[in-house]
């Protein structure tokens, strides 16, 4: 009995550690943005504690950077909250996609993994079917990103204006590399290819014309193109294996 318990604990720890390792490239990629969130908070007039609190509680890179810019220009609270809602609205899609993975978990797990459900966590877990979902693995990924984001914010607050210009390093390529590595093996059907190509073209077009909600528009158009083409081509209903 006790050896069984031990074995299970060992298995959980291993899943957790595999999650930590899987999240390392993406954690590296968010460091420059975390530094920026820290130094930018001071610039916007927040105290160090307030700047850190934002990363501790909100834990959403794009939202934090945009809102800090708005606070710096004395934007109103309602404008800040509407902007927050617009940027964060893609998370509704993540939640809906992860419903079959997570909604059966106990409340404390749902709260923890829901709080940690960033682009990166969704990328690493949502590309796999629900049967392969492991809560400890997901927790390892989420906490690795959370620690990285908060340590980088703290470093940005301490360094203040002296933060090195890490944008020139191009660390965001780690995001591109990881996401490509996750998406490509999942493209097994023509309809998925249609979704990917549509999302690619529309996201670049939106970026060119600086459409603020470009990410959401491109994602929804890509999903629509995938769905429409799967009906047109008469593809069978997505089996779980192809759900990536």
């Amino acid at each position, binding site marked *: 009995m006790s050896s069984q318990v031990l074995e299970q604990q060992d298995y959980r720890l291993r899943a957790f550690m595999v999650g930590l390792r899987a999240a390392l490239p993406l954690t590296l990629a968010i460091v420059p943005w975390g530094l920026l969130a820290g130094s930018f908070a001071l610039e916007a007039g927040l105290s160090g504690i307030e700047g850190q609190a934002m990363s501790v509680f909100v834990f959403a890179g794009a939202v934090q950077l945009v809102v800090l810019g708005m606070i710096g220009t004395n934007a109103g609270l309602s404008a800040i909250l509407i902007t927050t809602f617009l940027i964060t609205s893609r998370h509704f899609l993540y939640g809906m996609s992860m419903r*079959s993975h997570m*909604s059966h978990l106990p409340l404390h797990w749902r709260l923890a993994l829901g709080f940690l459900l960033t682009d990166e966590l969704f990328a690493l877990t949502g590309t796999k079917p629900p049967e392969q979902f492991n809560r400890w693995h997901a927790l390892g990924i989420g906490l690795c990103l959370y620690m990285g984001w908060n340590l980088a914010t703290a470093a940005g607050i301490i360094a203040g204006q002296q933060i090195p210009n890490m944008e020139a390093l191009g660390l965001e390529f780690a995001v591109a*590399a990881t996401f490509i590595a996750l998406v*490509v093996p999942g493209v097994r059907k023509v309809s998925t290819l249609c979704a990917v190509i549509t999302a690619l073209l529309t996201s670049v077009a939106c970026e060119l014309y600086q459409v603020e909600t470009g990410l959401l528009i491109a994602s929804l158009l890509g999903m629509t193109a995938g769905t429409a083409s799967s009906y047109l081509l008469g593809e069978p209903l997505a089996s779980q294996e192809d759900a990536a």
Partner: protein
Amino acid sequence: MIWLTIILMTAVVFVSRYLFLEPRLPLRLGPRTTRFLSYSAPAILTAITAPIVFMPDGDLALEFSNPYLISAALAVALAYLTRHVLFTTVVSMGVFFVMHV
């Protein structure tokens, strides 16, 4: 005021992440919605990736001198051939940093 802003932002972001994970939410995903959602990961991840790769400095850069584009093309090839996430990520990042310095 800053604290109120942080608290309300936290609420908005958390609700957007948690809402559909709540089993008591009366939402049954039919086959059409499930099919639509099955494209969420490839579509969203592509929409995040493409601007990084094609317009690293804010302008369209469809040139061989764009290290993002070349390394991304390598990543696509490696991911297709090996289907190994970490290997693909690490090798293409290595090539990127060599090209980028």
